[in-house]
């Protein structure tokens, strides 16, 4: 292949106020291993994202494999020819899916048939040594294995351009070496393939065919590694890079000097691990680790990801009790319950773990106070520590505004606030660029040599391991050897520590070694046709592959599954009873000052109704008040003396009734009931005494309470709550499913594959429609059997309506997802946005016909209105398709309109 694989001209990218790329122009040669090197924040990831088509171009031009990336048709044609692995261990993989399922998903996206997929999974996993772990979920893989799997997924469709963003950051040397030999093997098989890699590790870049150095969004220089070294007159790429930096960025860079330790044997043993063992279930994380560290020593810990380094360190800090063996600090056995030992150790964990919300000074002050330092002595300590670590200027800034290197210094300062004689540092320099790493090491050397602080540090960087006084090599929970770096290199008879490390480890794990027969071994003729044609705009298989994957993920997330199936059941139950307006079995008592058969008769009418239950009678006015005050009685009656006599005479008596007004709605209902019973009793009395005419009205009002003759809340509420729940939860689930991908990063797979927006959205929607139909059936069964609300109309009509309604409800979630970035926002945003129109404008409480203005318009359009009419019709009114067909039309129209809106709002590229 001739000509460059990618051409970039005048590229500029700005995030809010930060300039990520500033007028970048490049020509990346084809058919070779091209590297983009530079420190954190240089703009490497932004550049690769643009090359892969994952990110939209703001200004400038990008041509990849001859295609202009600003043209969407050209992009669609290009996607099958490139593969992109974003930064972060396994960031575009699906954590709950297994190794095989992940590769299978990517293969499906490129339209491969089942047989072909099987062969490719087999070939790729055999080449990467992953075939033993086919059914292991991604979140149980080590960092190195995740990256190998990422490579498998990228190679599954035989791309012509492979784009890798910092594929080996945070990966141990052996896995790193295996990763690169895998890439070499693939390139050997398919020499036409171009590879573009970003890295912050310069040693790694020495092997590249061509590199470009980026800093602060600008290109410092490009060319072969030799050319760059020659241009700057340096020996290594790292110094070449520093040489290329402008004067002010170069700073006072000098190699780290380490003075020798005086008189090693005489000093005291500080840390001792004696057959330390830690098991988690049946997994042994650390297996009989033994070593000892002397005062003032810098002791390094090197080993592959997940080999037990962190667990060992945690046992030595007292965070974690060992399963077997002993950890001793200054000859005392460590006891995790003894808080005193914590004063002797400063610990820095692998990830930044201070409060982002507190300034540097407040973070340090909190640590000082918890260690019992306060007042002027604490302030003094903070000042001197800040001065020593170069943090004085940053004291009143928030950690988020500091560079990674400064954040690491802050963590160190927090670990040292109480002047511990021992520091345990877990990968403190991971992800930090070389200049900042050297600065950090200078501080460590000073602490060790001048203050006699014992330092126990773990690292993936071999040049850092070389600076340690002694190192321990760890693998699979075992300490393989402990010695000075020089002695280890000598013993293995190799050139440097990395080779020694790899040699030691390879003896333990020869089965993991790649066999050199890497991917891309499928015949090329299969892909000839596929490559030349533009992928179809809509492909059912891609849609189904998204649906298939979404279902798998959902099944492995118990909380979301519960929410989807049981959430609506729980809420129906709660709301059915919680919104109930019935007054049943209300306690009442009587202060009967008459005590005649007539007054007893009056009382028994009330006591006999199903609304009231009589309590022991009241003796006095003050008792009445006290019992009302305590909330015991909802209603108290006072029948005056001479009630029966006055009634006979027609003298007009007055019965007193006190209602507890604390709950006005209930009080209104009680008043209605009491008045009704009272009137009824009077009529009965009048008829009995032959005076009916005197009180009967001259006409009759025949009131028929239709559909719900007993006025039971449940009959009214349940069919109204079902549409509400079937809007809220399905919408929330689909909104979450899209936003989750945005938050976790797997949305990149949608950005860089030929998947169209419609395929993506429909694929994500399908499982939730199916699941929500299940939830609809459960709700219906529960309404009928548990809540005792009969379904009087057509079940078929109701189910059909539910299917259409759920398609609309899930589409509402898809529309909302376009505006949300985080899962929290999606949950609460959907709850608010979907519930308000459903509750206020859909006729749940007030009929839509009573609404005016804007609310009326929303009510007429919102799908809930129409499904509510159907649900009430089918449940309470005994209706079927013939009567309800008018409500179907707006529902049927809503589905395509909402999905269309979601498609328009979804972006195919990140911005």
């Amino acid at each position, binding site marked *: 292949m001739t000509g460059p694989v990618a051409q970039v001209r005048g590229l500029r990218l700005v995030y809010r106020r930060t300039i990520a790329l500033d007028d970048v122009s490049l020509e990346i040669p084809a058919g070779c291993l091209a590297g983009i090197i530079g420190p954190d924040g240089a703009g490497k990831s932004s550049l690769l994202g643009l090359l892969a088509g994952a990110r939209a171009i703001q200004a400038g031009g990008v041509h990849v494999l001859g295609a202009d990336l600003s043209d969407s048709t050209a992009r669609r044609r290009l996607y099958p020819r490139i593969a992109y692995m974003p930064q972060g261990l396994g960031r575009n993989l699906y954590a709950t899916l297994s190794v095989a399922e992940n590769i299978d998903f990517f293969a499906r996206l490129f339209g491969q048939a089942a047989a072909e997929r099987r062969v490719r999974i087999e070939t790729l996993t055999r080449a990467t040594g992953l075939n033993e772990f086919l059914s292991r979920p991604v979140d149980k893989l080590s960092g190195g294995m995740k990256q190998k799997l990422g490579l498998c997924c990228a190679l599954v469709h035989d791309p012509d351009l492979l784009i890798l963003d910092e594929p080996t950051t945070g990966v141990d040397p052996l896995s790193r070496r295996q990763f690169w030999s895998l890439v070499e093997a693939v390139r050997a098989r398919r020499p036409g393939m171009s590879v573009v890699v970003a890295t912050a590790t310069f040693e790694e870049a020495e092997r590249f065919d061509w590199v470009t150095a980026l800093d602060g969004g600008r290109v410092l220089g490009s060319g072969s590694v030799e050319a760059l070294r020659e241009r700057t007159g340096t020996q290594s790429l790292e110094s070449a890079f520093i040489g290329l930096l402008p004067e002010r960025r170069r700073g006072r860079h000098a190699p780290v000097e380490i003075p020798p330790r005086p008189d090693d044997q005489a000093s005291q043993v500080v840390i001792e691990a004696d057959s330390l063992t830690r098991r988690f279930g049946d997994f042994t994380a650390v297996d009989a680790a033994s070593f000892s560290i002397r005062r003032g020593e810098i002791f390094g810990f090197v080993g592959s990801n997940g080999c037990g380094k962190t667990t060992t360190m945690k046992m030595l800090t007292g965070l974690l009790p060992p399963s077997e063996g002993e950890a001793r600090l200054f000859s005392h056995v460590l006891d995790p319950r003894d808080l005193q030992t914590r004063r002797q150790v400063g610990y820095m964990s692998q990830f930044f773990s201070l409060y982002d919300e507190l300034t540097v000074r407040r973070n340090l002050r909190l640590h000082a106070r918890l260690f019992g330092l306060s007042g002027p002595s604490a302030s003094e300590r903070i000042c001197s520590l800040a001065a020593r670590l170069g943090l004085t200027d940053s004291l009143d800034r928030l950690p988020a505004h500091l560079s990674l290197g400064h954040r690491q210094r802050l963590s160190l300062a927090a670990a040292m606030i109480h002047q511990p004689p021992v520091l345990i540092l877990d990968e403190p320099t991971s992800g930090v660029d070389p200049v900042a790493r050297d600065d950090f090491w200078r501080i460590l050397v000073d602490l060790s040599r001048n203050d006699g602080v014992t330092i126990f540090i773990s690292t993936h960087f071999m040049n850092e391991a070389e600076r340690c006084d002694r190192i321990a090599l760890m693998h699979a929970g075992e300490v393989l050897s402990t010695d000075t770096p020089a002695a280890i290199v000598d013993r293995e008879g190799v050139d440097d520590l990395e080779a020694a490390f790899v040699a030691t480890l390879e003896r333990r794990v020869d089965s993991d070694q790649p066999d050199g027969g890497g991917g891309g071994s499928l015949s090329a003729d299969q892909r000839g046709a596929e490559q030349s044609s533009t992928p179809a705009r809509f492909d059912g298989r891609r849609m189904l592959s998204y649906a298939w994957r979404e279902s798998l993920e959902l099944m492995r997330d118990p909380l979301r599954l519960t929410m989807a199936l049981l959430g609506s059941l729980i809420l129906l139950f709660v709301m059915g009873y919680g919104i109930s307006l019935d007054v049943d079995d209300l306690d009442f008592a009587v202060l009967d000052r008459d005590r005649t058969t007539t007054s007893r008769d009056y009382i028994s009418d009330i006591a006999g109704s199903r609304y009231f239950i009589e309590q022991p009678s009241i003796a006095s006015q003050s008792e009445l008040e006290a019992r009302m005050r305590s909330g015991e009685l909802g209603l108290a009656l006072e029948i005056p003396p001479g009630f029966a006599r006055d009634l006979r005479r027609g003298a007009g008596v007055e019965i007193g009734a006190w209602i507890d007004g604390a709950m006005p709605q209930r009080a209104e209902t009680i008043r209605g009931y009491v008045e009704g019973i009272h009137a009824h009793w009077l009529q009965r009395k009048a008829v009995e005494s032959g005076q009916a005419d005197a009180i009967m009205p001259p006409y009759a*009002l025949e009131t028929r309470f239709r559909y719900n003759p007993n006025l039971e809340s449940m009959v009214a509420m349940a069919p109204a709550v079902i549409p509400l729940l079937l809007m809220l939860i399905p919408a929330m689930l689909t909104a979450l499913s899209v936003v989750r991908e945005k938050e976790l990063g797997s949305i990149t797979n949608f950005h860089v594959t030929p998947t169209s927006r419609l395929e993506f959205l429909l694929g994500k929607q399908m499982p939730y429609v199916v699941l929500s139909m299940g939830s609809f059936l459960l709700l219906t069964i529960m309404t009928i059997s548990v809540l005792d609300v009969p379904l009087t109309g057509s079940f078929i009509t109701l189910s059909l309506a539910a299917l259409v309604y759920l398609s609309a409800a899930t589409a509402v979630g898809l529309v909302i997802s376009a505006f949300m970035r985080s899962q929290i926002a999606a949950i609460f945003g959907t709850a608010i946005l979907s519930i308000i129109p459903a509750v206020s404008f859909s006729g749940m409480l007030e009929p839509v016909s009573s609404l005016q203005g804007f609310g009326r318009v929303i009510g007429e359009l919102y799908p809930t209105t129409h499904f509510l009419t159907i649900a009430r019709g089918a449940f309470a009114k005994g209706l079927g398709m013939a009567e309800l067909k008018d409500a179907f039309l707006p529902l049927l129209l809503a589905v395509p309109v909402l999905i269309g809106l979601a498609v328009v709002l979804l972006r195919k590229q990140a911005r």
Partner: protein
Amino acid sequence: MRLRNVLNLAVKELQILLRDPIMLGLIVYAFSISIHAAATAMPETLSKASISIVNEDRSPLSWRLVDAFNPPAFLPPALISTERMDARMDEGLTTFALAIPPGFQRDLIGGRDPALQLNVDATRMTQAFSGAGYIQAIIDQQVNQFLGRYGEERRSPASLELRALFNPQLDQSWFGGVTELTSRITMLAIILTGAALIREREHGTIQHLLVMPVTPLEIMTAKVLSMGVVVWLAAAVSLFSIVHGLIGVPLQGSVTLFLAGTGLHLFAATSMGVVLGTFARSMPQFALLILLVLLPLLMLSGAMTPRESMPAFIRWIMLAAPDTHFVMLSQAILFRGAGLTVVWPQFLALALIGAALFAISLAGFRRAVGALAR
């Protein structure tokens, strides 16, 4: 447990909360606008009910009846034919349908006791029952006026003198104000504490605390204390300024007693926030849990609807929820002016439930912390 550590950690919690504009906004909104809006939005009486009338009489009296249904209680009546009546009710277009038969006026004057027919869509619970009473009263009045009986009140041999205690006008916003306040207290206590815990977990800061000389008990007490104090203060301010000041709820009982009860309830509710925070692995999971737990808690506590209308087993289960007791005590104190002699059982229940929840949350927190150390 050393008090100094707890205080230092509690101060840290407050400093972090002060830096979080979203949470601060939520607190202010929840205790001011949200309470006011929810309390005053509850409909006072029947409003904008839709009524259809089949006027087959077309007499002066029947037109008089049609004209009697006016806003705000009713929308202007729709005049329809008998045939359309059922369809309109089936489609949910109207809640009430009144049929005036031919010859109604004639029969009434003739003393032949004519009958009117009123159909009520009883699936609209909020309007059906009270609306039917309203309609009856309106027709009564019109008919009596028409028959010239106006002024000459029919004497009933026994009248019923109804008085509503504690809220004589049955003002919905009084009830709404207190109900909303109590539910906001529970909601904020759970959300703030749970979110504070999960944020520490997600950022890995809790692990960092554990390498310092502090115990899980101290960390948890600090959270319960700091978030409890924040919600307590917000509730007190809101009680005076919004509930009493703006909505105008008279504070009948002892405010001190109510605030003491609030403090006890917050002990239980913040502990519950910790329990939920240890269950959830991430903020999104926590948010889902909140929806599934908070809603039942608030709706079944007896704050929205009376407890006696719930089935017995729900009443039993809900006795274990702190909300139930808190709602009881706040209604008793704030509406009925009850003193400690009346509400001591609720105080006792809250103290016991709080202690139990705190113990559970501490166990859960220790377990979560143990898992973190892996």
